[in-house]
């Protein structure tokens, strides 16, 4: 009946064994999906953006680009993955009665199936080598980021077992019944065995062949309970990844009276959030990248995601594998819906400690590192929203920051009247938008400079604002600032979970900007946090603006020849390292622009840190951490300062006011910079120092410091 498998004793049993296991796998997965469906928050629309999502699937699931950030692990995983896929063709053939083989053997005289058989042989050997390597990593070299448990070893044994039994079943098959075309390695190994007793060869073949089917079936049954569930879940998880800008947090309706604000329990999550939990492979790339974990704080992004999975599994407790029909439930008084109590358990202090929720700097290093595109940060902000908006439970220091933002529109608590103090003493006028509008000259405005609170109120960052304004003036641009009409964008409030204060500030700003029709102009800012809010988040509140970071803007001015530097070849050579801002590099892909600006400054040699560009290491001030005490572990800015100093560079260039504050403090406190020789300087300051005097005005630019 099945000519292809004529030699296999009791072949038809395969259908029972394999498809039985497959059905079990499907039922367990369906039970997981019932928990996912209990999430109230909206998930991605399953049927939208199919081309984009499919491309992402190819890029992250099939090409596994994220895996190659760790090249050794990347190569190993790629080998196992593709080997597994190729060998799965063989398995699929077996469990369908040889249909695949029959079809693929028809054209070209069986060449295709022959090629597949040959490749399977090669791949089997490669996979066995890689499995050996994986065992070596887990048992001997032991990288710190991995979670060590029996689960991983079982999976490696199962994969190795499938491949080995398949290969050697073929070897004994060939030795007893003669070679089949293509499988040349099996044939070569079979050679010395051909003379053995045929009864032994038959028995060895039968045992190994059935062992392989048994392992495949066992694998299917084991998978949904293990971290290796990712071999199935990674595909939907990658497909349904967040497509909105990384820096756009989910919108919040604060007028919904009955709603839970933010995330308290599993039920407040979306289905994709819980899918993240089931997909996590515990590889630990997130914890390895996390600045909080790296400085000894309780936050571990991996444990958080694993905790969500544990809670989801717990919520399944008592659910039957096969849901009962309504009639059965009624007749026997059964209740197999998810128990409300399991869904009412708070996530904070179960999946993640309270302190850890506040350790997050929202730098997104975990999200960037995750090969299966898990979103950690948005969930942590969801938890903060609930703690702040419903329970008023947050580190006491934030009380002042919240009140200041709400009261006077900036977290420093400075009087709005002093917003323009940074312009005092500049040799040119910094126009205010209201005056420009009153004079009817708004049309002629080239660009709005969004100064930001840090540059307006912080002593050190005021110098950056002066340098950047000097560049704008030197380029002969018609620019203006909002002055007292500007308020905090709300980013710190939003990242600290206070969407109420965020929306109050943000909608005020949107209203102001729209009043001056700034949607038609370019807005430039030197603050990556303002940049992210205005550019990526104000759309939720009806404000669509074109905002440019000062690095990109200065680069354009240089490229257009509107800014000229003095390069008389005598400029002393200086070394500089660039500390990338998370919200520029990682969140908004601005990596080349600040380097282009530094490249234009004469005499500068850029030395990169190890963690650079999209892999940058946070300064420690993101996510509202600027206004919290750092009492747990060591200081993040000290860690980053060490990284910067170890390059040997004489200057640390920054592109963000918070990074500036943190790096400045870090450098002043660093023991190996006791003389204070290495200083933090913004890219705009480095450029402004070397600008040629503006010819028309004939002004000197000695006003910077």
């Amino acid at each position, binding site marked *: 009946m099945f000519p292809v498998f004529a030699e296999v004793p009791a072949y038809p049993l395969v259908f029972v064994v394999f498809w039985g296991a497959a059905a079990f796998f499907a039922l367990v997965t369906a039970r997981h999906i019932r928990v996912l469906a209990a999430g109230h928050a909206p998930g991605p629309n399953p049927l939208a953006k199919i081309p984009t999502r499919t491309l992402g699937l190819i890029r992250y699931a099939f090409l596994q680009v994220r895996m190659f950030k760790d090249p050794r692990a990347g190569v190993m995983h790629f080998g196992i993955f593709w080997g597994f896929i190729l060998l799965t063709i063989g398995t699929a053939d077996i469990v369908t009665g040889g249909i695949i083989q029959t079809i693929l053997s028809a054209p070209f005289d069986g060449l295709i199936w022959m090629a597949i058989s040959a490749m399977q042989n090669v791949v089997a050997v490669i996979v066995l080598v890689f499995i050996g390597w994986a065992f070596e990593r887990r048992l001997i070299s032991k990288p710190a980021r991995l979670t060590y448990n029996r689960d991983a070893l079982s999976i490696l044994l199962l994969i190795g077992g499938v491949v080995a039994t398949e290969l050697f079943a073929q070897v004994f098959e060939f030795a007893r019944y003669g070679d089949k075309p293509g499988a040349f390695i099996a044939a070569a190994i079979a050679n010395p065995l051909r003379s053995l007793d045929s009864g032994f060869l038959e028995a060895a073949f039968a045992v190994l062949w059935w062992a392989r089917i048994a392992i495949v079936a066992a694998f299917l049954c084991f998978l949904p309970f293990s971290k290796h569930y990712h071999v199935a879940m990674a595909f939907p998880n990658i497909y349904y990844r967040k497509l909105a800008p990384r820096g756009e947090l989910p919108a919040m309706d*604060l007028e919904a*009276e009955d709603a839970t*604000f933010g995330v308290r329990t599993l039920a407040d999550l979306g289905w994709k959030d819980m899918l993240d939990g089931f997909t996590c492979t515990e590889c630990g790339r997130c914890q390895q990248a996390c600045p909080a974990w790296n400085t000894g704080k309780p936050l571990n992004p991996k444990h958080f995601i694993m905790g969500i999975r544990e809670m989801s599994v717990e919520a399944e407790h008592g659910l039957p594998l096969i849901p009962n029909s309504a009639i059965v439930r009624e007749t026997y008084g059964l209740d197999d819906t998810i128990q409300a109590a399991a869904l009412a358990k708070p996530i904070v202090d179960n999946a993640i400690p309270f302190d850890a929720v506040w350790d997050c700097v929202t730098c997104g290093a975990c999200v960037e590192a995750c090969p299966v595109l898990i979103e950690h940060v948005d969930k942590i902000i969801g938890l903060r929203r609930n703690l*702040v*908006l*419903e*329970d*008023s439970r*947050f580190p*006491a220091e*934030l*009380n002042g920051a*919240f*009140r*200041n933002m709400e*009261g*006077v529109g900036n977290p420093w*608590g*400075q*009087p*709005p*009247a*002093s917003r323009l103090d940074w312009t005092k003493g500049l040799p040119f006028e910094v126009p205010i938008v209201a005056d420009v509008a009153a004079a009817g000259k708004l049309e002629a405005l080239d660009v709005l400079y969004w100064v930001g609170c840090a540059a307006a109120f912080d002593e050190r960052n005021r110098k950056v604002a002066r340098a950047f304004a000097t560049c704008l003036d030197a380029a002969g641009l018609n620019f203006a600032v909002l002055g007292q009409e500007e308020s905090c964008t709300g980013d710190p409030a939003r990242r600290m979970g206070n969407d*109420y204060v965020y929306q109050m500030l943000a909608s005020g700003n949107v209203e102001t900007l729209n009043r001056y029709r700034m949607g038609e102009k370019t807005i430039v800012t030197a603050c990556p946090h303002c940049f992210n809010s205005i550019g990526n988040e104000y759309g939720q509140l009806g404000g669509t603006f074109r905002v440019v970071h000062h690095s990109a803007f200065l680069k354009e001015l240089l490229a257009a020849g509107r800014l000229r530097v003095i390069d008389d070849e005598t400029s002393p050579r200086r070394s500089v390292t660039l500390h990338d801002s998370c919200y520029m590099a990682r969140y908004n892909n601005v990596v080349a622009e600040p380097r282009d600006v530094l490249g234009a400054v004469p005499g500068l040699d850029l030395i990169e840190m190890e963690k650079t560009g999209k892999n940058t290491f946070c300064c420690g001030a993101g996510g509202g951490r600027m206004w919290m005490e750092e009492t747990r572990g060591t200081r993040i800015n000290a860690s980053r300062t060490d990284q910067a100093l170890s390059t040997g560079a004489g200057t640390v260039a920054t592109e963000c006011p918070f990074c500036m504050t943190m790096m400045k403090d870090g450098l*002043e406190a660093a023991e190996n910079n006791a003389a204070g020789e290495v200083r933090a300087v913004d890219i705009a300051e480095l450029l402004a120092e070397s600008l040629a005097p503006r010819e028309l005005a004939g002004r000197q630019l000695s006003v910077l410091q």
Partner: protein
Amino acid sequence: MHIVVMTKPVPDPAAAAERLDADQRLDRAASPAVVNGNDEYALEAALKLIEAFGGEITLLTMAPAAGAETMRKALAMGATRGLLISEPALAGSDVPTTAIVLATALGGLTYDLVLAGVDTSDGGGGVVPAAIAARLRLPYLGNAAKIEPDPPNGRVTVRRITPIGYDVLEAPMPALIVCTQALGEPRYPSLKGIMAARSKELVTRTLESLGADVAGAGGAHTTTRVLGTRRPPSRGATTVVRGSAEEGATAIVELLAARRII
């Protein structure tokens, strides 16, 4: 237990936008208003008391009509209702008038305790609570660092801060207590609190409806006069001393010695 907390709207000190108008009075429109900081400590103390003993909190203030907006912020922290005494003629009232009006308003309320802050960040007089207690012949317990009511026996014990420690005072309720910051940081209102505050009872009453006999009260009859005003001198440059505790102490001693302060 019924507690009345006196919460005054004041210009937000952080805004630093206080201005005097033509009559040498505070221009309240020039600056955003907040609940007086010390009053928030009194409200926090009251909230903790009703959490422990049950009961209600009524906010009381005398302010221009816009004071209702500020009172919503205090209601968001958890108070039950608000009573605003507002009348244009009261603008520029002095301490005696304020005390008479508030005492009259208290006469129409039921309460076991009246809590007030130490002083206000705008007027800074710090005597209105004492004047009210005197008018109503209520026990006056000042500078409270701890409040322990005993409702079944109708008594309250207060720990009063003194220059050398504290006194323990006991009085029958109703009593008036002036609260210090030692009672604990005021809470940050939750969003649920803010939403609930929108529909809480907030009554604005005029003098006439109070039945107050304050003829001759208000700015026109004030017993005090502003003779002149000037800005405080701006602070000098700040010196930041860095280093270990010993280095810091040495540097500070040298600095003080150089100025002949020590």
